């Protein structure tokens, strides 16, 4: 269900496992549409796109072949947090994705899913408005922002999953009737303006940079680089926003859903960051030579006149003509407690979920979970047990684990800091991390397998050489010094000049980060141990004498489900965890 970023990757993963796949979507013409800004990647998200690529997904290649502008974010802040980000041609991107579905033999059906098929606990298909019941070995729910979707702009509100699209009301009622726990979240988007109406001479030009491809070595022809533009809001912009607050659906209480803290609307920023006089706005093309420009950083659901008045205060946008105003969407999602880290709904052995409908926000997040859900749908169809990804090995694993193990009260966006092992989860080594697992699950491309194989062989050979000592230092030791780069290494080991550059780089980075990675792995292990101890059997924390009084009080109030959750509460100390363990009769051995 769903022709968005999650649904597409899920269907493709099923096909890789040689299962037949049917993708049902509201409008075929809008498959792969980017509802918000036309950019793929970013910090952590860039690495995630590469993970999707290595698991056989198509997002990376589609972005490579349609990109207009590229930047490597954080280039000067440490290799583990580099963030490749591409501005793409939104329409061309959507066409590429639709093309991938056709090429891989996914059957596409244009229809509206109005209900799940089968009894509670035995869902085995869907019911479509026109085509009626369709059953299958597994079902993936990837309906994005469409479930009971409502759009808001100023005092206007109407039903819809996004601008100009329908709201999946019937399906939402069905999910509620089946007693799934659901929540409402909201998110918003920025106005798009007419290119000709912008005074670019009043803004800073931000050229694209560098050669890069998300899909390892399968990049399309370089489409040349279109510039992006940078401008800033001012105190006046803020004042306009504040003046219009009484007509904002967010602030007068029409929207109840929680919005993303990290991608706030401009009116949110105006209220929350009163001390910040200006906010950066990126003006980004929606397509090559497209008339529409996206105003990244100006997400808003204020009334149209206020949006226009805000633009009038921003250098270069004074006269900008709005093609599509900003708006907010509020939608229903499945509470993450309903599914596990395989993306499998706990009480429905054949139902999986992915994308915004399971609490995330962002194309890349949707794609990553889509691959995982599709993979497991395929495995269920083939009678194999569902699998999950390690949080120490991939951002997808971090995301699936985070989502399913905690109750979130706002859309989940991926950050590098969500990963304990972020020093290891680099975009640079995504293929080394993912291709081996992808291969074992039948998702990997032959060319990727061969490349990674060759690379690993090179790496072992060079590493063996570097175990040796020269000028009194072991080569691996030398790599660990903060000042060592490739050039410094070659100074002592000149023969490495003939070796594959990537292999040498990989060793340098692995060595540089090795101490951090070991520590992170230990922490993940500890956390897993703690998470595995259930506290469900504790009826009353206040009478546990083994722990201190303040901890009893906090635990009684928060009622954590596992020792891991208890550990994350402020005021609960390691000794209290020991005490809890003692109380549970498990001994103090951890």
């Amino acid at each position: 269900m769903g022709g968005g970023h999650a649904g597409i990757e899920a269907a493709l993963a099923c096909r890789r496992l040689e299962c037949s796949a049917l993708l049902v979507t509201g409008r075929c013409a809008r498959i792969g549409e980017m509802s918000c800004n036309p950019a793929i990647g970013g910090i952590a998200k860039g690495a995630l796109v590469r993970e999707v690529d290595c698991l056989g997904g198509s997002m990376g290649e589609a972005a490579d072949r349609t990109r207009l502008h590229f930047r490597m974010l954080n280039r000067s802040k440490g290799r583990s947090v580099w963030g490749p980000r591409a501005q793409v041609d939104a329409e061309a991107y959507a066409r590429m994705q639709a093309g991938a579905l056709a090429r891989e033999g996914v059957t596409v059906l244009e229809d509206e899913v109005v209900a799940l098929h089968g009894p509670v606990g035995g869902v085995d298909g869907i019911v479509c408005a026109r085509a009626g019941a369709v059953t299958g070995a597994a079902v993936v729910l990837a309906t994005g922002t469409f479930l009971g979707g409502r759009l808001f702009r100023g005092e206007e509100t109407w039903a819809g999953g996004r601008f100009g699209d329908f709201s999946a009301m019937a399906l939402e009622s069905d999910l509620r009737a089946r007693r799934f726990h659901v929540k409402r979240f909201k998110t918003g988007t920025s106005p798009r303006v007419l290119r000709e109406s912008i005074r670019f001479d009043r803004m800073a030009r931000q050229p694209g940079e560098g050669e890069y491809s998300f899909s390892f070595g399968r990049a399309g022809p370089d489409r040349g680089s279109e510039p992006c533009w940078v401008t800033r809001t001012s105190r006046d912009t803020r004042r306009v926003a504040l003046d219009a607050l009484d007509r904002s659906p967010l602030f007068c209480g029409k929207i109840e859903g929680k919005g993303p803290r990290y991608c706030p609307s401009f009116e949110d920023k105006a209220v929350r960051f009163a001390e910040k006089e200006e906010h950066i706005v990126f003006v980004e093309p929606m397509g090559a030579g497209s008339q529409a420009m996206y105003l990244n950083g100006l997400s808003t659901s204020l009334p149209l006149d206020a949006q226009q008045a805000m633009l009038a205060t921003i250098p270069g946008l004074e006269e900008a003509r709005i093609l599509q105003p900003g708006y907010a969407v509020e939608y229903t999602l499945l509470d993450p407690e309903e599914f596990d880290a395989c993306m499998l709904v706990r009480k429905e052995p054949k139902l999986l979920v992915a994308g915004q409908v399971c609490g995330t926000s962002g194309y890349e997040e949707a794609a990553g979970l889509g691959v995982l859900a599709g993979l497991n749908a395929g495995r269920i169809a083939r009678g194999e047990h569902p699998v999950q990804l390690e949080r120490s090995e991939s951002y997808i694993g971090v995301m699936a684990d985070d989502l399913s193990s905690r109750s979130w009260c706002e859309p989940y966006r991926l950050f590098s800091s969500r990963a304990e092992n972020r020093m290891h989860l680099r975009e640079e080594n995504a293929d080394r991390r993912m291709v081996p697992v992808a291969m074992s699950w039948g998702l990997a491309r032959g060319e990727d397998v061969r490349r990674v194989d060759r690379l690993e062989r090179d790496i072992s050979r060079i590493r063996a050489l570097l175990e040796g000592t020269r000028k009194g230092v072991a080569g691996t030791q030398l790599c660990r010094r903060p000042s060592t780069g490739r050039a410094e290494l070659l100074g002592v080991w000149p023969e490495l000049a003939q070796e594959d550059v990537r292999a040498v780089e990989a060793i340098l980075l692995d060595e540089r980060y090795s101490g951090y990675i070991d520590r992170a792995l230990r922490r993940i292990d500890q956390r897993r141990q703690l998470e595995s101890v259930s506290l469900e059997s504790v009826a009353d924390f206040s009478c546990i004498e083994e722990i201190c009084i303040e901890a009893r009080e906090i635990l009684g109030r928060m009622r954590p489900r596992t020792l891991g959750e208890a550990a994350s509460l402020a005021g609960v100390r390691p000794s209290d965890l020991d005490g809890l363990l003692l109380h549970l009769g498990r001994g103090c051995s951890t």
Partner: protein
Amino acid sequence: MGLDPGRLSGARRAVGLFRSGSGEALDQVVALSWKKGSSYTGEEMVEVICHGMDQAADRIVSAVVEEGGRAALPGEFTRRGLLSGSLTRLDVLVLGRRSAEGQGQGAAGATAGSLLRRLGEVERELEGRLEFGEQYGVGISREEAAAALSELLERATELEGVAAALERPARVVIAGPVNAGKSTLFNTLLGRERVVASQSPGTTRDWVSESAEVEGVTVRLVDTPGEAGGEHEEEAGRVCREEMTAGSDAVLWLSEGGASEPSGWIIDEGFEMLRVSSKTDLLRGPGVNLSCRTGEGLDEIRTWISRRVDLLPGLSEGMTEVRRHLEEAVSALSSAREDMACEEISEARRKLRGIVNGQRMEKAVEAALGMLCVGK
């Protein structure tokens, strides 16, 4: 509580008349109010500073009591600060020590609690810089972060010094009737024949203390002369005992087959105690069954000693690690490796949190709270 300018930050001030419940003007006062989270105790708080002499203060206090207030207990403010998380256990120890040394309030600029909080803030800012810096222009600059970090490094170094001063090995007394096997246990825990053990009752005449490693923790073990039991403690013996047990943290009470009740002083003086039935290869008893012959119960006793004894071995070592991580963070930042800097700060925080909240702190903290006076 005395005025120190640092403490006033975050307070709102007002000047006016303090009136009793019935409206009678009592004194001209300055009132300071703190919001939740910003006061000494971390709670919402109002402090009234009166101009008049003690009499005026007394009148104000009685007026407040009349309206349902009550006087604070000794150390209550600190205890509340601890409960609300605005003070850490380490801070309480430092305060207790200062108070014992008659230094009073103030000078506690570098509390572990504030260091922990500031480190958290700097880490969040740096993470913001990593995650959103280039796309949304948020987060602090590298220079600002470096400056903030160097300052925190200084505070950490200061705390490292305090920690070294606070550190002392834990002290566990082995007590019990004559011939219970105390000296044998003492030697066994030490791993060598330090004192004489023999079947004649009353072998040990003097208090002997020796440093030992128990499950990786350094402690001081004390062997004692056997107690005659039942009879009244002699004055000379009591003085000697008090001298020797002062500063001890726990007592192992040994008796053959668990036959003898622990002496009154252990309970009276509130020592933590473990009852041990000794020589259980001969006769079993209640509590922990110990036989130095067969080794039964030894592990249990070791664990108890290393866990229950609430002292601070490794405190300054821990603070040294915190300081080292911060040094690494500063140097990572100066070579444009924000990712590593964040990692180091986060490790420093974890270590510091472990130290200030450590289990071994508990008892020492209780003792420190006892040393504080009203108003602290």
